[in-house]
């Protein structure tokens, strides 16, 4: 694909996706002012953050403070390129697409750590180290369940993984995969019960010192990560663009929307997890389940 078209395409998907996340977040959230407000609120909110001045702290790590939100946005975009939206339309359906996506999602840890580290302020710093603990705990199960979808396809290309689900979607073939993916995915985007680095106990944590456009970019980038996770989840577990009657892109969009709705809903449905509890959960629950998923799917694929 032409580079300019690629950039516009990914930007468009992430932009629309981030808006949908904001609308859903308002719809599921605690404040209810009617359906019209769901659609208007994200725009008003963005306008406020554009008017509000951007602050910075004394002696920040200035470069990291500027780059952290940009890195988060860049990772969301890079992860998205590996997914074919229709059989023929993929920005970079490379032979190691799963690796590209996995790498982008794991490096989110660096972006969040920098965001918390750079302002030289106590609560963001604690948030940063909390996310490091989380990322080390969800990293392996997250990668494992994504990798498992490659076993029946005999390829790490996302296009091949989608094609391998022609007869049966992975959500049925590997029943443990999607639940683990959703839980660890929400943790990648530090969303909902996994808002651990940005919890109320830290008064906002990693994002405490961010205001105005810096905060807006950080929020949009995080929504972008959720979108990328949903598009990928739709592709590797729900058969991506496969489906009757409707064109391929419509199926991708529909399945993505379902996963996005699950993600956003979970954000308001659960209490924030303690960080220690999450570390325990990641290693003692998620990891064994993910390993069972790998080997059970392996035996089934033989």
């Amino acid at each position, binding site marked *: 694909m032409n580079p300019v078209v690629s950039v516009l395409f990914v930007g468009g998907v992430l932009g629309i996706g981030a808006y949908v996340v904001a609308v859903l977040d308002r719809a599921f959230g605690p404040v209810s002012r009617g359906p019209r407000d769901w659609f208007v609120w994200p725009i008003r909110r963005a306008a406020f953050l554009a008017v509000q001045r951007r602050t910075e702290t004394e002696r920040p790590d200035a470069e990291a403070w500027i780059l952290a939100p940009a890195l988060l946005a860049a990772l969301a975009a890079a992860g998205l390129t590996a997914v074919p939206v229709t059989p023929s339309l993929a920005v970079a359906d490379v032979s190691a697409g799963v690796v590209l996506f996995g790498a982008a999602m794991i490096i989110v840890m660096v972006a969040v750590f920098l965001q918390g580290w750079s302002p030289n*302020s106590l609560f963001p710093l604690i948030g940063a180290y909390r996310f490091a603990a989380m990322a080390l705990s969800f*990293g392996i199960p997250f990668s494992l369940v994504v990798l498992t979808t490659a076993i029946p396809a005999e390829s790490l290309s996302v296009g091949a993984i989608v094609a391998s689900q022609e007869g049966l979607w992975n959500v049925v073939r590997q029943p443990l995969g999607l639940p683990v993916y959703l839980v660890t995915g929400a943790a990648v985007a530090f969303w909902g019960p996994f808002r651990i680095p940005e919890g109320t106990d830290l008064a906002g944590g990693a994002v405490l010192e961010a205001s105005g*456009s810096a905060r807006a970019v950080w929020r949009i980038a995080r929504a972008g990560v959720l979108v990328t996770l949903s598009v990928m989840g739709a592709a590797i577990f729900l058969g991506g663009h496969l489906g009757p009657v409707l064109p391929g892109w419509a199926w991708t969009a529909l399945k993505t929307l379902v996963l996005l709705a699950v993600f956003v809903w979970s954000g308001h449905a659960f209490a924030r997890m303690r960080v220690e509890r999450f570390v325990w959960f990641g*290693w003692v629950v998620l990891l064994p389940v993910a390993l069972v998923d790998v080997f059970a799917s392996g035996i089934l694929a033989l």
Partner: protein
Amino acid sequence: MGGLGAALVVLLAAGLAALVARWLSSVLEPTTLTVPERVPFTGGMPPQVHAWNRFHIRYYVMALLFLAFDMEMVFMYPWAVVFVEEGIVALVEMLMFILILVVGMVYTWRERGFQWA
């Protein structure tokens, strides 16, 4: 242009777009902040020391365990591709490898490596 090249272009473009969006608000109205406006917030009182410190990462045992499993992930990517071709041999080999690592995980758990407060 190869696929990875396209991914790289998109990565850079998205990062750049975020930087521009962030910078736009200072074009709208430039601000310079005074010293008290830049004090980090901890509830009203100014901090006595800078926040950066040799942070006590109490989960270091878990971090070491992660390294072991992360190395295993490197092997698993090619393994997943050739798995169906190699059949039961690949399954048993990887199972043995993983089981050894899982013993390490269980030991860390028993030694309370997953809790620190």
